[in-house]
């Protein structure tokens, strides 16, 4: 599948044509400046789309000019100005279509099988869930794509991870990818385009598939991909950017999956039926154990440092770890399916009085959908803070941050030191695990809960 898409987009050797370029406020201002300096334009504004997500407040602020933090305001206003000057369509703060860039692409139907998709954000791998080749780029490359609609790229190696069996009750796509990274390590996929395959993946929803591809970068992978199938086509049908001739498009998309005899540089097999709910204990996503396990003995200096930062001692049961905050959101887990899963755990319960919990929908449309379904009421009744769309506490570039020393169960993708706020301690979990942790004030094995 990777080879088919790559070969169909090679303009010249090592020069790849880009079908869709997603732009946000943080990694684009210097790129637009570069264009201005050289007197260059945007080659295909009709294949480019922008939104504001990383540093927008999630308190309901409805316009860039109203953002209280001056630097954030300037950055979002700069994006709006740049988009206007270069005729790039934008769904900024206040728009019905604003949201996390990796949520709105699929939501609008722009993310389609067979496309090459880039964005100045490492979690662009999310879009590979549709059978697209999607990866994150830096600002120089953002400028390059704006100017040429192409990218100079070295062909990555290929890896296939085949999953067998069905995920057990309470075990989700988030646990599957955390367990995978735990097994392969945070360098296990470096230099590779990774295809997630097998019966387990075929049985997952698009939202779950996006969660998996999203975290490919946490294993060091360049791109994550999943073969398009009926589930994929059903997602796209009826969306605003869906092809007018959907049947014809689907016919070409059916040609994309890897052939039976396709060769991969590396093949990995994982028994998905044996997986458990996972919780990270350290400061990278590969430092992860099953919820029933204890904090492991450190075997490297890196692990020792991680334990010091996390203020944990080896042998402590993960379920004994008390929490101060719970965050449900981010490009990994903020889609309507994620919120439904979390809400299903919360109904009829109260958030523990020892912590505060928040839910941040991934887009304005996810928020509206959740409110139409009454999910906001479920969360509010349980004591969760119900917020507006944005990257929020995943990366702490906006007012949603941890205080030093605070411990957080988070559905986001990175537990790096200080990621959610200087001195903050992050444990990555699934939306269901986060919701249950919010109720109990500590991690619980949701398979045995209630």
């Amino acid at each position, binding site marked *: 599948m990777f080879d088919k898409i790559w070969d*169909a987009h090679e*303009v*010249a050797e*090592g*020069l790849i*044509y880009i*079908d869709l370029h997603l732009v946000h406020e*943080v*990694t684009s201002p*210097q790129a637009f*400046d570069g264009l201005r300096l050289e007197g*260059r334009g945007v080659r295909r*504004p*009709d*294949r480019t*789309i922008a939104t504001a997500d990383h540093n927008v407040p999630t308190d309901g602020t409805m316009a860039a000019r109203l953002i209280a*933090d001056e*630097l*954030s305001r*300037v*950055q979002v206003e*700069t994006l709006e100005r740049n988009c206007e000057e270069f005729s790039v*369509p934008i769904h900024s703060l206040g728009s019905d*279509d604003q949201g996390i860039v990796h949520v709105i692409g699929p939501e609008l139907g*722009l993310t*389609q099988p067979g*496309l090459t998709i880039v964005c*100045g*954000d*490492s979690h662009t791998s999310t879009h590979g869930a549709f059978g697209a080749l999607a*990866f*994150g*780029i*830096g*600002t*120089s*490359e953002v400028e*390059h794509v704006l*100017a040429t*609609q*192409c990218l*100079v790229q*070295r062909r990555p190696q290929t890896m296939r991870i085949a999953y067998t069996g069905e995920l057990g009750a309470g075990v989700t796509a988030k646990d599957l990818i955390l367990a995978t990274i735990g097994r392969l390590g*945070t*360098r296990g996929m*470096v*230099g590779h385009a990774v295809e997630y395959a097998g019966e387990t993946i075929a049985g997952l929803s698009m939202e779950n598939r996006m969660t998996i591809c999203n975290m490919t*970068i946490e294993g*060091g992978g360049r791109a994550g991909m999943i073969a398009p199938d009926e589930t994929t086509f059903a997602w796209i049908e009826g969306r*605003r*950017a869906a092809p007018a001739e959907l049947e014809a498009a689907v016919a070409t998309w059916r040609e994309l999956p890897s052939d039976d005899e396709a060769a991969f540089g590396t093949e990995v097999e994982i028994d998905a039926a044996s997986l458990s709910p996972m919780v990270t204990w350290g400061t*990278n996503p590969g430092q992860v154990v099953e919820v029933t396990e204890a904090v492991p003995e450190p075997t490297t200096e*890196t692990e020792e440092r991680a334990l010091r930062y996390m203020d944990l001692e080896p042998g402590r049961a993960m379920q004994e770890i008390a929490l101060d905050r719970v965050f449900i959101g981010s490009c990994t887990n903020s889609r309507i399916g994620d919120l439904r899963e979390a809400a299903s755990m919360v109904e009829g319960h109260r958030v523990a009085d020892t912590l505060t919990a928040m839910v941040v929908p991934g887009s304005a449309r996810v928020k509206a959908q959740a409110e139409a379904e009454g999910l906001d009421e479920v969360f509010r009744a349980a004591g969760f803070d119900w917020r507006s769309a944005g990257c929020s506490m995943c*990366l702490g570039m906006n007012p949603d941050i941890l205080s030093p020393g605070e411990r957080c169960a988070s559905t986001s993708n*990175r537990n*790096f*030191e*200080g*990621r959610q706020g*200087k001195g903050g301690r992050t444990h990555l979990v699934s939306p269901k695990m986060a919701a249950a942790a919010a109720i109990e004030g500590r991690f619980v094995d949701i398979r045995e809960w209630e």
Partner: protein
Amino acid sequence: MEPVEIIEGCVSHLPRADVDTDQIIPKQFLKRVERTGFGEYLFYDWIRDGEIELEPNPILVAGPNFGCGSSREHAPWALQDFGFEAIIAPSFADIFYGNCMKIGLLAVILGERDCRAIAEAGAARIDLDDQTVDFAGGVLRFEIDEQAKHRLRHGLDDIGITLQSAAAIDAFEAAAPARGADTRSL
């Protein structure tokens, strides 16, 4: 971008594995819309908390998987602005490696033992033409993509080079069936 030929001088050492770009340049400094001035915020928390000390030498020797995580080019900007002209490490994260090459910050991959030896020697001379690192312990050869080397060596503007292929891009667009939707129609 300045051409890269010889990089010579003292070596700073950061012997840690999996150093992510959130550490190299913490998020609060990504709100700037300029491209310069990030050097003073390099490893902001680690340096300010006294966890590490770094001299602004021409060469940084780092640990494996350096630059993992976020795609922020602010990380290589900060390293370059701080004074580093080259980074030597056993391995780099993909996006970070690409970002370095785009801005003329030479990323050199050598084995873990070689990296340690260079750090211990305290000084080195990197010759891009020869693809060698010369230090008190010997001369080591490193691998680099030919195209990337050519661009670095001559300080070439990537976009300018690609635009020389404008006819090929035009032809590609004309020949390929339209892929994806018009983003302006939404």
